[in-house]
């Protein structure tokens, strides 16, 4: 059984079929790219997998556990981390606090610890800071931990989002257009980072991306979406030669 199994999910909004019959199986250590034109339903796929929407049909299974109808925060705790297309860091919190928010659900002190400085709380807060600083270090953002995210460059904010997602200790990491708005240097740094994480941590990564060179270079498998339908699945080379993909991307030859 695969780590993440997405089976024939469909999702409609009114008359619009945002996803039709999408399936995917991802194992630990794999990187799956999801590409397609705007409005192809890519982000909706992420939203269904992470529980923002419930699928109309089909199922999502993580580590053999059916998470299709689970609540968002419980799915995250099962091991689903994600970043967002439009960066969604908490603006009034520092970088470190942003990351700590993702650690907090794993923190083991209750409401008594919240109101009184019990030894348990102090040790848990310390453990949390250490873990978060480790992840910030890993993405190269340790020096910025006391900054406010809104004061950072776009590329740095993306890294903070990744650190925050890593702090959820995901088995599956969903990256929604991580390279959007980055300059070429930042893109290549990001590519390295994603590959390194995939090898070091060994989770499955699902990647939505418009920059084909990025997706093609690091993905093991690519799913091409168009108008909610999967038009091709395969290795980067197979997909590149698929006539339907060429048509969707370049238009039909007259």
């Amino acid at each position, binding site marked *: 059984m695969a780590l993440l199994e997405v089976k024939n999910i469909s999702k409609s909004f009114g008359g619009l079929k945002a996803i039709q019959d999408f399936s995917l199986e991802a194992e630990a250590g794999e990187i799956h790219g999801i590409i397609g034109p705007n409005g192809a339903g890519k982000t909706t796929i992420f939203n269904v997998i992470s529980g923002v929407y419930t699928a109309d049909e089909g199922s999502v299974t993580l580590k053999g556990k059916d998470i299709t109808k689970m609540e968002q925060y419980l799915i995250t705790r099962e091991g689903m981390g994600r970043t967002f297309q439009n960066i969604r860091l908490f603006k009034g919190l520092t970088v470190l606090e942003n990351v700590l928010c993702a650690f907090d659900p794993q923190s083991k002190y209750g409401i008594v610890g*919240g109101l009184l400085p019990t030894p348990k709380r102090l040790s848990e*807060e310390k453990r949390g800071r250490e873990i978060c600083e480790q992840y910030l270090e890993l993405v190269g953002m340790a020096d910025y931990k006391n900054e406010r995210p*809104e004061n950072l460059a776009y590329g740095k904010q993306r890294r903070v989002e990744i650190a925050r997602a890593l702090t959820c200790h995901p088995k599956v990491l969903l990256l929604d257009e991580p390279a959007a708005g980055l300059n070429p240097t930042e893109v290549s740094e990001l590519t390295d980072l994603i590959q390194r994480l995939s090898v070091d941590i060994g989770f499955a990564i699902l990647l939505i991306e418009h920059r084909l060179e990025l997706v093609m270079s690091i993905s093991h498998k690519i799913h091409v979406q168009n108008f909610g339908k999967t038009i091709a699945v395969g290795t980067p080379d197979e997909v590149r030669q698929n006539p339907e993909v060429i048509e969707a991307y370049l238009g039909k030859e007259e």
Partner: protein
Amino acid sequence: MSLQIIVNGLATGSVYALIATGFSLIFNVLKFSNFSHGALMTLSAFSGYFVAAQSGLGLVPTILVAVVTGALVALAGEFVAFRRITLNNSSPVYFFVSSITLGTMFEGIITVKVGANFYNYPQFFQNSTIKFGGVVISTSDLLMFFCSVITLLILAYILQKTRQGRGLRSVSFDRDTASLMGINVTRTIQFTFIVSGALAGLAGVFLGINYTLYPTLGSLVVKGFIASVIGGLGSLTGAIIGAVLLGFMETILISLVGSGYTPVFTFLLMLVFLLVRPSGIAGSNIQEKA
């Protein structure tokens, strides 16, 4: 400005600050003005009166009873009046109606229980005033000031340094993202109501000591409301600054135009403030929210 005015202003402002922060916390998390906050203050103040003060238990048990009542009733109120609206992501209008209904219901319960009579907390202190230099400070003012300051400091610490506090702040910014980071949003909202209710309980007892206990005591919540608007809705620091300013202003106005005209000028000032700087003092200057 005489020292006496400063002292009185600070004392009044500190109670307004308690009301304003309790009010702002809910506003931050659910983005609506909780109009049941005032009635909750009254309810807690009366429960303190009947359970502890009346049987001669003294000040500390009275405060404890009021704070616990405030927290528990707020928690129950959240479940009854706001939970479903929150889960459905409904329009703020429903929160508005729900909170007014809840507040009116609380007031109704109090009126049925106590009638429209006035009640007085027993004298908690042997000396009602302390002379300090040339300034006369009432013991209750002094107590209010220190209790409020300590409470607000603890609150600030909880918000900054604990997971519940961070949860509250992250949910204030973006409920959906917080939930996608594994934060139990419902639990966080409950926590917010508990804290807000406890603050209402404390403020209720202080108002009861300062004035008298009567069923519509909660209408003083307007002062907290004004303070949080002056400070900039959503900013806790702003709410506290606004509260202290309001306290000073009232004290000065009372010495200038007498207590009869003071509310007129206060509300006039709020209107002017809304016209000139609707985002409040903090507005965009102070970025932090909770």
